[in-house]
């Protein structure tokens, strides 16, 4: 199946980019491999029917945030350091902690919709996920595929964003204002 092969290709590039972020010594090379990871994730978002999120991922993450990172790296003229990795004891702790985390996270990924419906509905017998999830999802207009068919690509996410989550959306603007003021105050040598 074509889509599945494409998914595994982009998953491979995402993991390779993430490993290069950790391994490479030069921060600029790390930043570029992080861009590779973000672009692969954007294409995976497109595959998962989240077109708007994929576009925003490219614009905001790969565009704005990473340009900010590269700007700061070049402004500070980093990239000539040899001793960037921690010494051996820290490596042992890191390997053990990451191993424990992975051994707990990866089994969680054995996702089954039936089991989730069973836990969600609190019933003893096996619940039908179509009844548990799809009816409420369709009534609220939250089914991703149907929402995109009915309201178009930005419209599918715009309706829950501006109806159900309007107050958090407005609070985000306060957060952004605080971040702007905070960044200016922190970065200025003399206020």
């Amino acid at each position: 199946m074509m889509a599945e092969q494409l998914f595994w290709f982009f998953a491979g590039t995402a993991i390779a980019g993430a490993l290069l972020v950790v391994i490479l010594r030069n921060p600029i090379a790390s930043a570029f491999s992080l861009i590779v990871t973000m672009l692969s994730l954007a294409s995976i978002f497109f595959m998962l029917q989240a077109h708007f999120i994929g576009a925003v991922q490219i614009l905001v993450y790969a565009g704005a945030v990473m340009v900010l990172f590269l700007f700061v790296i070049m402004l500070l003229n980093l990239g000539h350091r040899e001793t960037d990795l921690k010494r051996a004891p820290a490596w042992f702790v890191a390997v053990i902690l990451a191993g424990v985390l992975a051994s707990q996270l990866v089994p969680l990924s054995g996702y089954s919709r039936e089991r989730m419906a069973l836990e969600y509905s609190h019933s003893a017998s096996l619940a039908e996920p179509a009844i548990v999830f799809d009816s409420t999802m369709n009534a609220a207009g939250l089914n991703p595929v149907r929402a995109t068919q009915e309201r178009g690509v930005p419209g599918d996410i715009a309706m829950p964003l501006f109806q159900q989550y309007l107050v958090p959306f407005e609070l985000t603007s306060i957060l952004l204002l605080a971040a702007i003021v905070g960044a200016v105050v922190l970065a200025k040598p003399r206020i």
Partner: protein
Amino acid sequence: MPLVGPSLVLSAILFTIGVFGVLVRRNAIVIFMCVELMLNAVNLTFVALSQAHGLSGQVFVFFVMTVAAAEAAVGLAIILAIFRHHKSVDLQNVNLLRG
């Protein structure tokens, strides 16, 4: 709902790599990039599960991206201040609060 399980595996792997990077590196900017990597992994989880459980997951991804952008701006300003003070961004030097 294809690809939900593989996406969750991928996001678990990416999150673990991010944690590993935070623990192993000393350069503040690279640590920061690993934090962004972890946020991206969580975004992938949200998007994958939004296929089965409704569009609210994608709205949450939108909010996570906003918070990440704000965090990047403030964090990089803090790193600039640290660099101005210590002439490096090595976090081994920043141990003023250590007892």
